């Protein structure tokens, strides 16, 4: 029961992140949505680790740590791109950034 609730919370967080990424047109909000989805993934890792048969092999924890590190890198690069897009297009609307050349 507890695992199901945890997974449901994680699923809801994932759906909220998806909602942010799909409906908001601001690139920063899209990035925030992706961060939320990553957080939901981490929550899944941790809750499966807690309910695994062998919690002493801390695979879920290790996975979550690496995932957080990657999320940090992703946020840094993503926001740098957003700032550069804003500098060129004077907008952070994802619909505006629709051409490939600089």
């Amino acid at each position, binding site marked *: 029961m507890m695992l199901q609730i945890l997974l449901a919370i994680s699923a809801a967080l994932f759906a909220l992140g998806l*909602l942010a990424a799909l409906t908001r047109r*601001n690139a920063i909000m899209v990035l925030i949505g992706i961060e939320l989805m990553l957080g939901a993934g*981490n929550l899944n890792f*941790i809750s499966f680790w807690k309910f695994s048969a062998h919690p002493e092999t801390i695979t879920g924890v290790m996975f979550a*740590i690496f995932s957080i590190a990657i999320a940090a890198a992703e946020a840094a690069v993503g926001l740098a791109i957003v700032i550069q897009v804003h*500098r060129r297009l004077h907008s952070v609307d994802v619909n505006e950034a629709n051409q490939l050349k600089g």
Partner: protein
Amino acid sequence: MHALFQKIAALPWDQLPQWLFLIPGLLMLLAAFAAVCLRNLIHSALCVVLSFICLGVLFMALGAEFVGFVQLLVYVGAVAMLILFAILLTPASEVQASNNPLSNFRLSSALHAAAGAAVSFLVLAGLLAAIAFSPRAANAELPAQPAAAPVALIGENLLTYTLLPLLGIAVLLTAALVGAALIAKEDSKS
């Protein structure tokens, strides 16, 4: 009065700490929902920070203290600051009337939002159904000894089983640092 005391004392209090994780969990969902709905970008970002904090607390409540504190350190200390700085550095970043004729059409943006909401609702429904019908999730029991991730074990793991990923992450972070600095650098010609 006396009987009431005893009745309260007889409740299954020993199970209470197990369920305390619901508080940060639900608060996290609430904050994330507020973040998605709020129009003001800074408010939305602050709500996301709250939901990150709650996620960290949730990790701690589940026994992964190290991950919880790393979550707080990385997300609240670094990622949140990056997001807030990015919002301030992109002024008028709330989307206004743009050159794209399609996006000026209000029906299209409504359709856009509706489609997004539908997709995420479908994903949520699918996930929830999968969780509800999965026999493994339903039958999962807490292992006999409570799960714990002592920091020494994590350190040992990092330098043995996951040494290669650790090195990969180190390279990735360096590359991300340099890359982010390069991308965000002001063009010399402009």
